[in-house]
């Protein structure tokens, strides 16, 4: 065997976690990559078995195996349905961290580098956003998406319009009876791609009696780094956020991006072995709330306006499966006068966005997106609401790809409209 067998490092999935899987197969049909391919190698049970086989040194992490692990969306649908409580997300993150630390494929290293050195660095991220903005504004995107050779390749590329959300410090004072003080996670991509969602979030929170602040020293949440195996960067970002938010003296940390919220709720696990931060991380994780979760717990300020529209809701994987929140966004939508919620089939099936998955695995991502667009079309809804920037961008790409009209929004945007 190899001198330094993978899966013996600090991030290695634990034996206890791995042996929880009793290979009953009950997760198979909830896994998008399995139902798309029909291959056990692309199923949760298969991936767990491969990870276990590497840990037991029955096989090596050959490119074939790494390919199977890499095709996983980390949507955690399998985790949500597994009756044995297999912590799939944690196992997969651990496995990827070990692989990245151990002679990883070049693509993995480049990905980790890009996420660490561009996405997680505000200034470089802003420059990158400017490029994406130009790409769209210059008409280049329009051209590329109409060129037969390029169309398929570029349709999922991120594009940006609308103003960047730049405010920091105190963002809003409570209206009416004060309920508390909350901090907003600004995030890496959200402020550039969907600044309007932050604005809506701030207004809705203020309307419901919250003082909203954005601690200036906060960082990117580190979710993408962790998903792609870069645990050290994820941990460094987590520490910065813990310091920034705990110093802000708030009652809750509000997140309007499901992927970020789910990662931040897991800071306790991420830093469990860090003597200085373990306790703080746990405390911090307990303060994190998805914006829909926070609002649904309140006696919500009744909307004064109406939103006359047929709306369908797409559950972000990291809201439905990782945070197990499915009721809250629907309750908020139901509270909006005039709005008709038309459920699509399998609303919690991954749309194929999955962080930077849509770029790394374009074909699978497009297959999943096409399935999602069919379900959306079947509802006849003209508005698609969701709660995560990645999902919003992916579904917008789906509308362009299928040349369908439609509007993609975050749930709080609709609520914000109803308050006008």
């Amino acid at each position: 065997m190899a001198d330094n067998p993978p899966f013996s490092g600090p991030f290695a999935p634990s034996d206890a976690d791995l042996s929880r899987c009793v290979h009953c197969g009950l997760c198979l049909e909830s896994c998008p990559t399995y139902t798309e391919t029909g291959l056990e190698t692309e199923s949760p049970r298969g991936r767990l078995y491969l990870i276990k086989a590497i840990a037991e040194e029955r096989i090596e992490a050959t490119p074939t195996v790494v390919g199977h692990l890499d095709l996983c969306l980390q949507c955690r649908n399998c985790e949500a349905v597994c009756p044995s409580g297999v912590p799939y997300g944690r196992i997969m993150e651990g496995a990827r961290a070990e692989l990245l630390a151990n002679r990883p494929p070049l693509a993995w290293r480049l990905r980790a580098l890009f996420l660490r050195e561009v996405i997680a660095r505000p200034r470089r991220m802003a420059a990158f956003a400017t490029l994406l903005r130009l790409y769209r504004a210059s008409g280049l995107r329009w051209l590329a998406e109409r060129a037969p050779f390029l169309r398929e390749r570029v349709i999922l590329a991120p594009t940006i319009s609308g103003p960047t959300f730049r405010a920091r410090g105190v963002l809003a004072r409570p209206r009416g009876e004060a309920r508390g003080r909350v901090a907003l996670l600004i995030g890496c991509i959200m402020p550039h791609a969907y600044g309007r969602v932050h604005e809506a979030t701030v207004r809705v929170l203020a309307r419901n009696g919250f003082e909203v602040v954005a601690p200036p020293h906060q960082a990117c949440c580190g979710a993408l780094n962790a998903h792609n195996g870069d645990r050290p960067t994820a941990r460094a970002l987590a520490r910065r956020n813990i310091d920034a938010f705990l110093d802000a003296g708030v009652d809750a940390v509000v997140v309007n991006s499901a992927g970020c919220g789910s990662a931040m709720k897991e800071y306790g696990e991420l830093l469990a072995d860090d003597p200085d931060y373990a306790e703080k991380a746990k405390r911090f994780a307990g303060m994190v709330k998805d914006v829909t979760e926070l609002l649904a717990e309140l006696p919500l300020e009744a909307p004064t306006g109406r939103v006359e529209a047929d709306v369908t809701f797409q559950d972000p994987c990291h809201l439905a499966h990782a945070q197990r929140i499915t009721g809250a966004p629907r309750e908020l939508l139901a509270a909006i006068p005039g709005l008709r919620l038309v459920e699509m089939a399998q609303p919690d099936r991954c749309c194929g966005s999955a962080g930077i998955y849509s770029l790394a695995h374009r074909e699978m991502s497009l297959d999943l997106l096409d399935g999602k667009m069919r379900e959306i079309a079947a509802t006849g809804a003209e508005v698609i609401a969701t709660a995560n920037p990645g999902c919003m961008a992916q579904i917008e790409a789906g509308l362009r790809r299928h040349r369908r009209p439609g509007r993609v929004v975050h749930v709080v945007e609709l609520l914000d409209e109803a308050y006008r």
Partner: protein
Amino acid sequence: MPNSSLIRDLSRVVGRRWVLHEPEDLLVYEYDATIERGLPEAVVLPYNANQVSQVVRIARRHNAPVTARGAGTGLSGGAIPCDGGIVIVTSRMNRILEVDAGNRIAVVEPGVINQDITDAVAPHGLYFAPDPSSQKVCTIGGNVAENAGGPHCLRYGTTTNHVLGLEIVTPEGDLVWLGGKTADPPGYDLTGLVVGSEGTICIVTKVIVRLMDCPQSTVTLLAIFDEVDQASHAVSAIIGQGIVPAALEMMDRNTMRAVEEAVQAGYPPDAGAVLLIEVDGLEEETREQADSVRAVCEELGARELRIGFSAEDRERLWAGRKGALGALGRLAPSYYILDGVVPRSKLPAVLRGVYEACDSFGFQVANVFHAGDGNLHPNVMFDERVPGATQRVLDLGEVIMRLCVEAGGTITGEHGVGYEKRNYMSWIFSEDDLEVMAGVKLAFGATDLFNPGKIFPSSKGCGEVSSRMKAAIAKVGPDAYV
């Protein structure tokens, strides 16, 4: 590459993408939901019946055994390729070809998921009755092969009562139809013969299923008892009243504990057992039956009764039962599910015997089963990683199976014989009986082509690696696959 000409031939039929042969890929086809293991030499995913027939012909030419595989949720090692060879996976053959609501039939491919049939016909007010607890993932091909049952088979019968016809691939590679769209066609009931044959005589490529009308009204009752004994007596008493519930299920304390953790079903921690009873039919009939069931349970000491009328309430009562098997993974790293049948009247005594046997072996056991049919499922909890544990669990399994047989029961209710229980066959069948069965297999022309090592007693171990496989393994690494 192992046996490259086999791989080449297979690829020509189904396309390269759908033939797996790298050792790492084959690894995930060495298991099903049991604790047995066996590696194939190649895995093929055909797209239609025609491709299956060609794959079978190729297998014959190469002298490679063929094992069919659906979702791999089987509980008797059925889908494990004991002698290596080719595994044919049906996951790409998952189309519902025809729904004839008027005649209450549907024609489906073998890879269709059990639940998907019901979902597809629900708009017509119909459903597919066999409902194994694995119904959200297991395939109709697997159901046919194992003659799968489920909670509702007490009243409506197992898969065999709901299959009218089959298209199969014979060992010669020919496509043949058995049965048809009407009930009871003339001649031998070959459909009935194939159902439950565990993939040993043919590969099923299409299934004509019978659909049923959704009952007008359904009532679900959950009765909580302090003692397992009380609950088992209630089972006999209910049926003694002349009521045939649609379902009559029992869970014991250990099961409830696991379920409680998984789905928070609200079971009291100190209860000894719960019965889940469902009655269906016409509105008035079900109310009356529900009342009698309730009276019987109360009389026999039920400490709490919950009743569900609406679909949501009933689903809530069922949630714990449906997730029970999987939830046992929370109690121990591994579990071994047994499947035995005893006459209903012997339930209390045999259950006591099961607890005693497990105690004496030092293993915890959780019982969750189809009590109405006397179909026991003791789940023995253990840790696969402890040296010798697996063997002791298997020994315990044998003791429990003996208890069932001695009580006048048998060695499988619904999971099949497969690899795991083939050696118990001789407890209930004489040499002559088994020879007749083997004769039937031969009449189909199946020697050891399809799923060898299953059903019939043999001393050869599963996964005794073939020499060809050994050569392949040698290429990946010295310690691989030991």
